[in-house]
C-alpha cells in the first residue's frame, strides 16, 4: 500500500512532463504575441521585434522547450514574460484566495448537499425531493454571476451583512476572512450543491433498498444513523468522485466568482495569463494543477478504499 502510494506519486512526473510538452506546444500554436501584450497595441513593429528578441521568443521552439524544462528540473519556474516577476511569486500571491474560495465552496457543498440528497432519497417524491430538484434546476441553469449579483444585492447591498467585494487573507484574522469569503463561497458552490445533492440522491436511492439498511433498522437505530452511517457510506463512491473532481475543477473554474466578488485569485491570473500569452506563467500554473490533480485523484482513490473495504489496489 505504501509502495502503491509512492508509485502513484511518482507517476506525477511523467504526467507533468507530458502535460508540460502538450501545453508548451499548445501555447506556441495559439496566435498572439506576448510582446504585444507588453507594448500595447500602438507599439511599432520594430519595438515588438526588440521585445521578442529580448525575451528569447525568436529562438527555435526546441531550444525554448529544452531551456524551460531544464530550468524547471532545477526548480526554476522562470519569470513572467509580461510582468517580469518570478512566476512562483505571482502564483504565491494568488493561490491563497482561490484555495480559500474552493475550500469554502466545498464545505458549503458538502454541508448542504449531503443532507439534502440523503433526505430527498429517503422521502423519494416528497417535499425535500422536490426542493432538491428545484435546486438543481436553478443551480444548473442560472449562471454563477447572476447568483453572485443576487447574493450581493440582497446580503451585501440591502441587508449590509457582508461587504460587497474584496478578500482578506486568513492572516488578518478568521472573522474578517470568513466575512469576505462566505458569499463568494456560496455563489461558487451553487453549481456543485446542485450536482452533489442530485448525485447523493441517486446513489442513496439504490442503497436504501439493500438488506443491511433493513438490518440497521431492525436494530432499532434512528433514521439519522441508518441514513448517514449505513446508507451514505455505501453510497459514497460516486459522491466522493464528483466531490473530488469538483474540487479539482473548482481550482481552475473560479474565474467568474473571483471576478464578481473581486477576489485576486488564481482563476483570474490564468485567464489574464492566457489572454496575454504569458507562456511561463500558464505553463507553470498548469503544471502545478496537473500535479495537484494527480494528488487529489490519489486521495479520491484512497478514499474509495476507505469507504469500501472490499476495494483493493495493488
Amino acid at each position: 500500500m505504501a509502495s502503491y502510494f509512492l508509485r502513484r506519486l511518482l507517476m506525477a512526473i511523467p504526467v507533468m512532463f507530458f502535460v508540460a510538452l502538450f501545453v508548451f506546444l499548445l501555447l506556441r500554436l495559439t496566435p498572439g504575441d506576448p510582446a504585444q501584450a507588453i507594448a500595447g497595441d500602438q507599439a511599432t513593429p520594430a519595438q515588438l521585434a526588440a521585445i521578442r528578441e529580448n525575451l528569447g521568443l525568436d529562438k527555435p521552439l526546441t531550444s525554448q522547450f529544452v531551456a524551460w524544462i531544464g530550468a524547471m528540473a532545477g526548480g526554476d519556474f522562470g519569470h513572467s514574460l509580461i510582468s517580469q516577476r518570478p512566476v512562483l511569486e505571482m502564483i504565491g500571491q494568488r493561490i491563497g484566495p482561490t484555495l480559500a474560495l474552493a475550500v469554502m465552496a466545498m464545505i458549503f457543498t458538502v454541508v448542504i448537499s449531503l443532507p439534502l440528497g440523503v433526505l430527498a432519497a429517503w422521502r423519494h417524491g416528497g417535499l425535500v425531493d422536490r426542493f432538491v430538484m428545484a435546486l438543481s434546476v436553478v443551480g444548473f441553469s442560472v449562471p454563477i454571476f447572476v447568483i453572485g449579483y443576487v447574493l450581493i444585492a440582497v446580503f451585501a447591498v440591502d441587508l449590509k451583512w457582508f461587504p460587497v467585494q474584496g478578500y482578506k487573507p486568513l492572516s488578518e484574522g478568521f472573522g474578517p476572512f470568513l466575512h469576505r469569503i462566505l458569499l463568494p463561497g456560496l455563489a461558487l458552490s451553487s453549481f456543485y450543491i446542485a450536482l452533489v445533492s442530485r448525485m447523493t440522491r441517486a446513489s442513496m436511492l439504490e442503497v436504501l433498498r439493500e438488506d443491511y439498511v433493513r438490518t440497521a433498522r431492525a436494530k432499532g437505530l434512528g433514521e439519522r444513523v441508518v441514513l448517514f452511517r449505513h446508507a451514505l457510506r455505501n453510497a459514497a463512491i460516486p459522491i466522493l468522485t464528483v466531490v473530488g473532481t469538483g474540487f479539482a475543477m473548482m481550482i481552475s473554474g473560479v474565474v467568474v466568482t473571483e471576478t464578481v466578488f473581486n477576489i485576486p485569485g488564481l482563476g483570474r491570473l490564468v485567464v489574464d495569463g492566457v489572454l496575454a500569452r504569458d507562456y511561463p506563467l500558464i505553463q507553470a500554473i498548469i503544471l502545478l494543477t496537473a500535479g495537484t490533480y494527480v494528488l487529489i485523484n490519489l486521495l479520491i482513490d484512497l478514499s474509495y478504499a476507505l469507504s469500501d473495504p472490499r476495494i483493493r489496489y495493488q
Partner: protein
Amino acid sequence: ETTLNVVMQAPLRTLDPILSTAQIVRTHGFMVFETLLGMDAKYNPQPQMADYTVSADKMTYTFTLRDGLKWHDGTPVKAEDCVASIKRWAANDGAGRTMMTYVASVEATSDKQLVIKLAKPFGQVLELLAKPSPVPPFMMPKRLAETPAGQQVTEMIGSGPFKFVADQYRPGDQAVYVKNSDYNPRPEPMSWTAGGKVVNVDKVVWKAMPDMQTSINALQSGDVDLIEQVTIDLLPLLTANDEIKTGAINALGSQVTGRFNHRLPPFDNPKVRQAAMYALDQDQLMQTAIGDSQYYKLCASVYGCDVPLASDAGSEYLKGSAKERLAKAKELLKASGYDGTPVLMMQPTDLTILSTQPIVAAERLREAGFKVDVAAMDWATLQSRKNSTQPVAQGGWNMLFTYWGVSGIWNPTVHALLDGSGSDTAWSGWPRSARVEELRSAYLTAPTLDEQKKIAKEIQQIAYDEGFYFNAGEFQSVAAWRANLKNLQPGPLTLFWGVSK
C-alpha cells in the same frame, strides 16, 4: 492617513512606461516619473523638471534642471540621467525616433544642464518632450535608462510625486503608491501635466475590477473612492445617489477607428473603401457602443474633435442620413467592380469597448452589398493577427476596429493611422500615399500653428479620399467618484495630484 482607492480602467500588468503604449502604464508612469516638460490645458509645453531656453535659430535647446529634484532612492537627479532617458525613449517611441533623425546631439553639459542640438530644423522638440501621449519621455536614473531597448525596466525609481510600493504590487490586480514626501512641487498652479503637482493624499491604491457591477457596488459602499471609467449604460445607477458624482476627468476623448487593410482585396480598391465608408454610420456605431449621446461626439476631425488641429475636411464622407448613405454606398460599390470577396472583420470579443462595432459594421456592410465574415477572437489574437500581411486564408484580415486616445492622434506626427508610407513598419493597414508622407515631413518643420493647421487639414482630406480608415467618432470616458473627493484634476489622462479626500 488618507488613502485613495481607485478602480482603474485596466489592470496594471507591466511597469515600464517607455516600453508600453498602454494607457494604464502611462498613467502609472505619471505617478512615479516626471517629464522634463509638462503640457498644460492649452496644449502648450511648460517647464516641469527643467526650465528651458531655445536658441534664436531654434537649433539648440538648453534644459536646466530645477533645484531639489531627487530620485526615489534618495540620489539627486542629474542631467546625465536625463540624457540616457531621452535616448532610451527615442529608441522606443515612433515620434521620438523621427526626432532623433533631426538631432545632432543630446548631451549633459553639467549636473544640472543638458543640451539638445539639432542637425536640421525641427519644430516639435518641445511638444515631443512634453507629450502626455504614448510614449511620454519619462526621466529615470541612468542605471535604469541604460536598460536595452527591448527589455523592461522593473525597478520603479522615478522622481515623481508618488513612490511605487513594490512589495504590494500584484500584477494584474493591485498597485500601491505612497506620497513622495521629498517631492517639491513647482510653484505654478497645476494644469494637466504642467505646474505644481501637489499631492494631498498619503496613499493611492489601484485596483483592477474586471466586473463593472462590482466596481459600482464598491463605489456605493465606499470601498473605493473613484472609478476611472464607468460603463455609460450603467450611469443611471449612480446618478441617483447623492454621495456620488460622475463626470469626465479625462479631458480628452478617444476616437474609434475602423481600419481597412489596403493590401488585400477587396479593400485594396479605393472605390470599395469609399463604398464601405458610406455604408458605415458614425451615429449608429457610437450609439450601440456608448448608448447615451451625451458622451460621444461626431466630427470629421481625424485629430480629435476639440484639438487645435481639428477641421471638417472630408466631412462629406460622413454626412447624410443613414438611408442616403446606404444608397450611396450601394451605388459606389456597384461602380467599384466589387467581386464579392468576403470582408474578414476581426472582432475582439473580450474587449467590451470594441466588440460591438464589428457587428454593427458588418450588418451595415452586408446591407450595402458586401459579403462579411465576422471572425471572433480574443484581443491578443487580434493584435498579432493584425500584423499579418498574408492573404485572409493564411491568417490575414480586411478590417478591424480600434480606439485611440486623442493625445495619441492629435497631430500628424503621433497619429499612427496617418502613416502613408505603406511600409511594413507602419501600423497595420498599410495605406500608401506619397503626398501624405510629404505633408507629414513638412508638418515637422512647420513654424506656425496656422501652417500646421493647413498641413493637417490637407492630410485629413487625403486620409478620407484614400480611405485610410473610417473615423467612427469620439467618445468620452466618464468617471464616477464619491462626493467627498475634492479637486479632481482634469488632464490628458487621470492624474492623482491635486485631489484631496
